[in-house]
């Protein structure tokens, strides 16, 4: 029997960050309804701190979907978590830079600050009874020792799913396998693979991650997203449905692509 893997769609968040498109509330709701019917496990619906229009979109998506969990993306800031709570999502995903380059050069902070800040954000969300996933941003360029110690702290605070983000898309198959296996060997957290296609390896690395034990795979319709995009939904299912069980078929994904092509073509 094939192992079941869950799909997390981030077309409406990472996909929409692609220059060239803007999705209105009605577009987002339309796409989310198709994804929901398709059997996507989680729809990352947007970023509440972007403003009122985004908030409204997320709330409407929540109203118009039946099965999929609706998640929102939040920076690792207490004020952003509070804005996310307004949308009453099923999951708040907190993006947490973990590579030294991002911690020291982008945030201009240090590891201790990151750990303290993420735990504070987790506590705020937990006290409001919202599920949390934590995104280990730029995990592919991080120090695995720091990642493991952070995961340990997060697990202690009740976080049971982490997103392994290959933010700049530099993973190779072996490195993907090594990171996922190391985390699985050292913790009980569930892993969500989030890879970018900068070296044309997003599909391959997602498959390797899933084979190594990741339960959730992040994808976007048509593979849209920052720079070269994310893991392409159709391509991923086509390449791996011989070894994994999914809630949808590649034919059904093609049908959805036809329905939403106009809304998303600016990002291709």
């Amino acid at each position, binding site marked *: 029997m094939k192992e079941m893997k869950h799909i997390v769609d981030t077309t409406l968040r990472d996909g*929409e*960050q*692609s*220059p*060239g*498109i*803007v*999705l*209105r509330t009605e*577009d987002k709701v339309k796409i989310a309804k198709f994804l929901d019917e398709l059997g996507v496990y989680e729809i990352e619906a947007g*970023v509440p701190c*972007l*403003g009122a*229009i985004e908030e409204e979109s997320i709330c409407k998506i929540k109203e118009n979907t039946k099965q999929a969990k609706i998640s929102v993306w939040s*920076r690792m800031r207490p004020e952003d978590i509070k804005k996310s709570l307004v949308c009453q999502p099923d999951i708040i995903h907190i993006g947490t830079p973990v590579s030294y*380059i*991002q911690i020291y*050069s*982008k945030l*201009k902070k240090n590891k201790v600050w990151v750990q303290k800040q993420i735990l504070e954000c987790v506590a705020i969300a937990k006290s409001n009874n919202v599920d949390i996933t934590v995104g280990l941003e730029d995990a592919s360029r991080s120090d695995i020792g720091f990642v493991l110690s952070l995961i340990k702290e997060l697990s202690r605070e009740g976080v049971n799913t982490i997103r392994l983000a290959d*933010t*700049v*898309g*530099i993973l*190779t*198959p*072996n*490195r993907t396998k090594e990171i996922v296996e190391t985390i699985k060997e050292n913790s009980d957290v569930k892993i969500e693979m989030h890879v970018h*296609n*900068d*070296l*044309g*390896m997003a*599909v*391959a*690395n997602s*498959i*390797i991650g899933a*084979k190594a034990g990741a339960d959730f795979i992040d994808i976007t319709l048509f*593979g*849209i997203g*920052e*720079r*070269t*995009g994310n893991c*392409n939904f159709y*391509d991923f299912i*086509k*390449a*791996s449905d*011989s*070894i994994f069980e999914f809630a949808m078929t590649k034919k059904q994904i093609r049908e959805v692509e036809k329905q939403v092509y106009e809304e998303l073509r*600016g990002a*291709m």
Partner: protein
Amino acid sequence: MIQIIDNTLTTFDYCLPTKEELQVFCELLFDIGVDIIELSVDAYERMEQIINGKKFALHVEFLEMADLFPGFYRYICHSEEPKDNVINEIQINDAREIVRLKSLQKCSEVRIVGLDDLICKSYDKTMAEIKQSVPKSKINFCPENAYGCASALAVQWVMMGGCYVTTSFAGCKNNAATEEVIMALRLALRHKPNRDLSMLPRLVQLFEKITNTTIGNKKPVIGKNIFKVESGIHADGIQKNPANYEAYDPKSVGGIAEIVIGKHSGMKAIQYKLQELKIPLPNEAVMEKMVAFVKETCTEKKSSLKDEEFRQLVHEVIANERNETYR
């Protein structure tokens, strides 16, 4: 030593490139780090001559044809018969067919084409089995791309000590993309054979002209839009240090990082764009109005703003501000 054969020039037979175009295309391929260029007989006849001092392989239908075209570094032929300077090619579609390699044990060089779903199998075990099946042969791996995993497989083969792969530019022959493999090896193995990847835009232009096709905007390494960023968090991160969100310097592949103003642009992205366009920065209150107006305008028109559109929007916001001040 890592060696890459590029077989793009076996796919141009249906096009009508000139001799000069083919020669420039070859020069550019060598510039970006290709070691051996594989030609079809048609492409060779159109080129008339190959570049002196460079390695070319000729793809022939029958082994006997090799004698008709002397002077090549290698001849590539779908054959089991061993012959000097020949790379014997075999199509293997499934890992279970690896046993067929035994028929090529006497060949000095073997090319394996296919195995497109290997990533879903025990690829490391299969790659080791391949090496054991033809222990005395130099093995060239040319994974096919039916499942979008060819570049990953080619890189994996090299990382496991295979060192010899066949690719094509932009993956046009349904195999690994030359530029993706070269860049991945550069990043993962620091393999830098002193080549110049800034030639890639010229190669793209020539490829598009010869094939009358267009490379996708988001195509890894060579797509026209891959260094454009809109999201506020990314734009800010790139300005602080490009390495925050770029795996490699866009200039190294002849590209340029560009901030696009759109729905996701925040205060910092807009500040950067104003500076880039040499527009004086307004005060914070006006900046906030500008951010809101950008979001509203982009949502309304359902796209990002071109620089000229942004410039116009800035003038509108500033003009409105002045009107309110002097009212």
